[in-house]
C-alpha cells in the first residue's frame, strides 16, 4: 500500500485483512504488515500486505520496503489533487525498485464525490499510459475486494 499521508490506505485494508500488529508500527518503523488470504481461480493465495507509512514532509517512505514486492496498490485521495502527484512520484520509485511489478491506482474516498478535486482528464491520461485505476471508498466498502482480486490476478499473470 503506497500513497500520500492520510489518503486512507489503512482504512482501505483494515476490515479486509488479518492483522496482529498495531498501527503504531507505521509511525515508528514506517510499515505494518498484514495478511490477506483469498481464493483465486480455485487456488489459495496468501498476500502479505505491507501497509507503508504515508509519504509526507515528516517521514519519507523507505524504498527498501518495496524490494521483493510482487505488486502494489497506489492510493490517492480524490478530494486532494496533490495526492495524485505524490502517487506519481511514488510510482516512479516503486517501478524502478520492483522492476515494473503490477500495480493499481486507487482513488479513494469516492463517497465524497461532491468535494472531488481530481479531474477525470488526469485519470484518462494515466489510463492511456496503461495504468489500472479504480475508484474506491473505504467508508462504504466500494471496490476494495475487487481491487485485491485484480491485483492478485495481475501478479499471478506477471509470474
Amino acid at each position: 500500500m503506497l500513497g500520500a499521508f492520510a489518503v486512507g490506505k489503512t482504512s482501505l485494508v483494515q476490515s479486509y485483512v488479518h492483522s496482529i500488529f498495531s498501527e503504531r508500527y507505521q509511525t515508528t518503523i514506517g510499515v505494518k504488515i498484514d495478511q490477506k488470504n483469498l481464493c483465486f481461480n480455485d487456488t489459495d493465495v496468501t498476500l502479505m500486505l505491507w501497509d507503508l507509512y504515508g509519504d509526507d514532509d515528516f517521514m519519507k517512505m523507505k524504498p527498501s520496503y518495496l524490494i521483493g514486492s510482487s505488486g502494489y496498490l497506489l492510493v490517492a485521495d480524490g478530494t486532494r489533487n496533490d495526492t495524485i502527484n505524490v502517487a506519481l512520484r511514488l510510482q516512479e520509485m516503486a517501478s524502478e525498485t520492483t522492476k515494473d511489478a503490477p500495480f493499481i491506482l486507487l482513488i479513494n474516498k469516492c463517497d465524497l464525490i461532491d468535494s472531488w478535486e481530481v479531474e477525470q482528464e488526469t485519470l484518462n491520461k494515466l489510463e492511456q499510459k496503461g495504468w489500472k485505476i479504480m475508484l474506491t471508498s473505504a467508508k462504504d466498502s466500494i471496490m476494495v475486494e475487487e481491487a485485491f482480486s485484480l491485483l492478485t490476478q495481475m501478479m499471478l499473470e506477471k509470474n
Partner: protein
Amino acid sequence: MGEKHNTNPSEILEAGKLNELRNLIIGLDHQELERLQNLIRDPHIFAEEISELLPYSVRKLIEKGELAIDSLQPFIEDAMHKSIQNNPKRLADILFPIMGPAIRKAVSEDLKRMIAAVNANLEAGLSPRSFKWRLQALLSKRSYTEILLANTYIFHVSHVFLIHRETGILLNQEIAAESTDLESDMISGMLTAIRDFVQDSFKSAASGSLDVVQVGDLNILIEQGPHAIIAAIVEGQPPADYRLTLTETVEAVHFNHATDLEKFDGATKVFVHTSKFLKNCLQKEKKEKKSNVPWPLIFILTIILGLIFWLTYLNFDRNKRFNDFVEKLDELPGYHITKTEKRNRNFFVYGLRDFQAGTYDSLLAQSRFDSSRLKLQLEPYISIEPAMVLKRADEIINPPSSVIINYAAGNLFLSGTASEEWVNQAIENAYKIYGVTNLDTSRLNQKTDIPQPDLEWIIPAIEKYTFIFEMNVVSLSAKQQQQFDSLVQAAVHLDDYNNMYNKKMAIYVRSYTSRTGNVDANMRVAVKRAESFASLLKDAGLRDELLEAQVLFTEDVNVSQMLRSVRFEVFEKIE
C-alpha cells in the same frame, strides 16, 4: 615363421615402420597392444583387472550423484534377505558381539529414563517451586509450560523461521513441541521490515546487519544468507556456539536450495525439505545440570526404609519386653508359666498362680510393657516353692521374732527360742502347711547349742555378703535367695543382741557407684538400688530401725568394690 620374418629385410623394415606408425597414431607399441589383447581375451585376468577399479568407480559414481544410494538399496536389501533365509545362523553370528551390549544399553537407558521420569514427577508434584510457577502463570496469563520452560532452561529455542530475504515471505518453520503456534507469516514479514528499517536507519554500519532483537528474556537471533535468513526465537541466553549452528543451517539451506532461492516466485512448498536443517536449531539446555543421583527417590526410599526399621524395632522391643516380663514372672514365687503366644496384636500368657502369690504389678511397671495388650490366663494352684511354703508357714504358725524358720525338701526347720505353748501349737499346725511333710524342731530352745548373740560372730556373718545386680534391677536369683535368707537370719541375731544388751546396732545397706560419666544419674541409680534392697530386707521381717540405705563412691573406699553391688556394714547408732 618368426625367423623367416626376421630374415626378410624388407619385411623387418615394414614391421618397424608399422610399429612406428602405430606408435604415432595410438601411442601404443606392439607389446603393449598384445598385453591389452590378452587381457581382454582372458576373462580371469580381465575380471581381476576390473575388480581393482570397480569399487573406486562405484564410489566416484555415487560422489558425482550419477548413482544414488537409494537405487542400490533394493539390491542390498534383497541380498541380505536371501542370505538370512539361506543361513540365519550366519547373521546371528555376525550380530552376536553387538547384540549383548546393545540390549544392555537399551535396558540401562530405559531404567535411567524411568528414574528420571519418577524424579521429574516427584519434583514437579512436590516442590514449592511448581506452586510458585503455577501462580506466576496465573498472574501473567501465560501457560504453565511456558513458565516452566523459562525457569527450567538456560535457553530454549521455541521457533525457527526460514524467511526469504527480499520478500520477507516465510519459506518454512519449525516449532518446538511444547511451544504454541505464532502468526508466523506476519512475524516473518515484520522481522524483515524491522531488519530493513535498522539497516536503512543506521547506514553508518553498512557492513553490519541486524543480528539480535532482544525483548526481556526473549532473543530473536537472525542469521543472514544471500537469499534467505534464519530467525530463531530463543528464551534465555543461548550458548556462544549456537550462532555457529545458525550459520551452518543457513549455509546448508543455500547449498541445497540455491536455485529455488534465486528463482523464488512465491511458492514455498519446495522448502519443506529444509525442515531437517531447521530442526537442528530447536535446541534447549537445562538450567541445572542434573546430578545423576536421584535424590528425591533416595529421600522417599530412606523414609520408607526408616519407617520399616522403626516398626521392626518397635516390634522387636515389644517382644523383648514381653519376654523379659514373662521370664521374671516365671521366677516370681508362686508363678509358673507354661506357654506364651502372640495373637491379633495381643500377648497371651498361660500358666499357674499360687493363691498366695504376690502381685505382678510392680514387675509389669518395671518392664514398661503395654498392659492393655497383655492377656494373662493363670490357673490357680498351690506352689511348694520354699518361699511360698514359708509364707504359708508364717501365716499358719505365726512364729515370734526369736524363731527362724527354714524349709527344704518337705522339711520345715524351726530354730531360735520360743515358749513351749507356741512350740506345741506349731507342732500341731505344721502339718496344715501345704508342702510340709516333716517338722524339725531340734534346734529350737537349745540354748546351749545356740551361740549367744555376740558381735564377734554376728558382724562378720552380716558383712561377708555381697549381692551383685543387673543395671538398675534389684531382684534375687535362686542362689542369692539362699544368701539373702542367711543374711536375714544374721540380722535377726543382731536385733536380738540389741534387745539383750539395750544397744542400737544397725546395718548400712550400701550400694556402690562411680564418679565416671553422669554422676547424678549414677547416684540416683545407686540410691534406688540401696533402698530397694533395704525394702527387701524389711519385707523379710527386719525392723526399719535396723537398716540404713547408703551410697558410696568406689573411688572413696579403700577396698575395691564392684559396681552395682550391695554390701553391708554394722555400726552403732548414736542418738
